[in-house]
């Protein structure tokens, strides 16, 4: 057909660099039917990359997208995609760094809660795709002798995640994604923590009080019930262990129970 030696060679490195840098020239050696370099043709690939990855990000973070508006999100997503292109072809895992990116993005310093809204949405997605597992039957705890109860540890359910925030992260996420019609007034001075679980196919989000958040966090990290309850009591004087624990169990936060001898 043609001799390859007289033609410029385009390798994946130069093709890839040009894809993510809109200022760079179309690599020499990519042509239209007339053999001429064709920037507009190359831009189809550039556009596919940025637009498809921005859309993937928008599907994972619809609440952040609503908060920022379509146009701002699009511009922001372009900046994120260029700075943090995906490392894996599995796009359900794309966007792990988005929350930190939002925290550090100078033009958004006036909206410091955005990062935590993204953390909540990321945790929701992890719960959605987590391994299926039956939650711990609360009756199992009743079988433990009272003397051993304090030594009980729990196995976290694969879908269980917590997000703790200085901001009313659930109120904001609820108003902008999960229950936009139910949302009430948002008090920006109210810190909120949530537990996210998926005992079967539906992802659930539970707002936790300070003591409940401390207890759940410690239990998910494998601490004993006695240690976790002690810290929760310090956090929150009105903390009720039986209420918080039964809420955790009902939510499906755990998949198993361990007794340390």
């Amino acid at each position, binding site marked *: 057909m043609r001799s390859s030696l007289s033609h410029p060679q385009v390798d994946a490195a130069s093709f890839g660099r040009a894809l993510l840098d809109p200022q760079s020239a179309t690599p020499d050696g990519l042509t239209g039917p007339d053999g001429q370099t064709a920037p507009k043709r190359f831009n189809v690939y550039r556009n596919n990359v940025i637009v498809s990855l921005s859309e993937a990000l928008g599907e994972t973070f619809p609440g952040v997208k609503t908060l920022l508006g379509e146009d701002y999100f699009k511009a922001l997503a372009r900046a994120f995609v260029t700075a943090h292109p995906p490392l894996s*072809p*599995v796009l359900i895992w794309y966007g792990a760094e988005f929350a930190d990116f939002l925290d550090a993005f100078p033009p958004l310093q006036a909206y410091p809660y955005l990062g935590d809204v993204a953390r909540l949405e990321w945790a929701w997605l992890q719960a959605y795709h987590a391994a*299926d597992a039956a939650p711990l039957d609360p009756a199992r705890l009743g079988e433990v002798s009272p003397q051993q109860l304090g030594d009980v540890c729990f196995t976290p359910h694969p879908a269980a995640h917590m997000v703790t925030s200085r901001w009313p992260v659930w109120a904001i996420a609820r108003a902008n994604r999960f229950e936009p019609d139910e949302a009430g007034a948002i008090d920006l001075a109210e810190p909120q923590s949530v537990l996210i679980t998926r005992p079967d*196919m539906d992802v659930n989000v539970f707002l936790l009080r300070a003591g409940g958040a401390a207890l759940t966090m410690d239990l998910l990290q494998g601490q004993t019930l006695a240690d976790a309850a002690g810290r929760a009591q310090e956090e929150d004087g009105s903390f009720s262990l039986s209420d918080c624990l039964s809420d955790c169990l009902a939510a499906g936060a755990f998949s198993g129970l361990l007794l340390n001898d």
Partner: protein
Amino acid sequence: MVSDTRSDPALRCGAAVPARAGAGLKADHVADILETGADIGFFEVHAENYMGAGGPPHRQLQAVRERYPLSLHGVGLSIGGEQPLDKDHLKRLSDLNRRYEPGLFSEHLAWSSHDTTYFNDLLPVPYDEATLNRVCDHIDEVQETVGRRMLLENPSTYVAFAQSTMSELDFLGEIVRRTGCGLLLDINNVHVSCTNHERSASDYLAAFPMAAVGEIHLGGHAPDRDDAGRPLLIDAHDREVDQAVWQLFEDVIGANGPLPTLIEWDNNVPAWPVLLAEAQAADRILAQTAGARRKQAV
């Protein structure tokens, strides 16, 4: 859930995909499909959407798989890439093949990863000897790892490589000869690429190695113009199949007989009945041809 599949002998052998029309499976359509018991030949899924550990995607796919033949279509393996295949990704593909035992398994003649970056687009490869060797090695590795024959899809391209030394047809034909893989003939891609590179789609199809084709794709494209004002078609999968593509499809089926045919509609996805109607239109063409062939035989 895996054990459910394995215990059903009809599914254990991987129900063959019939020479009928199928549709790309979309999460929003699953409830409609299962409720109405849609009469359709098969469903195809993008493998990468089912690489999470569990949750609703697998529950839905399991339910669909119990009722319909399945085609598993990878979009991220980067078979045309310059670097070795991603072993973890290949294992995920292999695991999905074992879990769902699809009747067809396909990937693309394209690359999408380089260094540590995944670009999420089907990027073009030069048609030269070095690339041919690499693609064949990669396909050998896929077929050995997954333990089955794969179909390789012809691409939509927007640029040509000045360094190419052979035609796309020669390139594909040589891959088939060396690796024994099958081909997924995307007729929309043929129309898009031939328009973009000012070639005849009919000539391309007349010379296509049809004996290797195990599946056909049909999809919609978006019209644009290139730098010199020439038509530039973009493989957008965002609308109905174009009339020109339907015509090429009729010609291919008329000349070669019916084949499993997928309607791809991945962006601006319509309501289920609209997608089903596209599949039914393809089914009518497949059935007509099958009928005409039977008459000929009599």
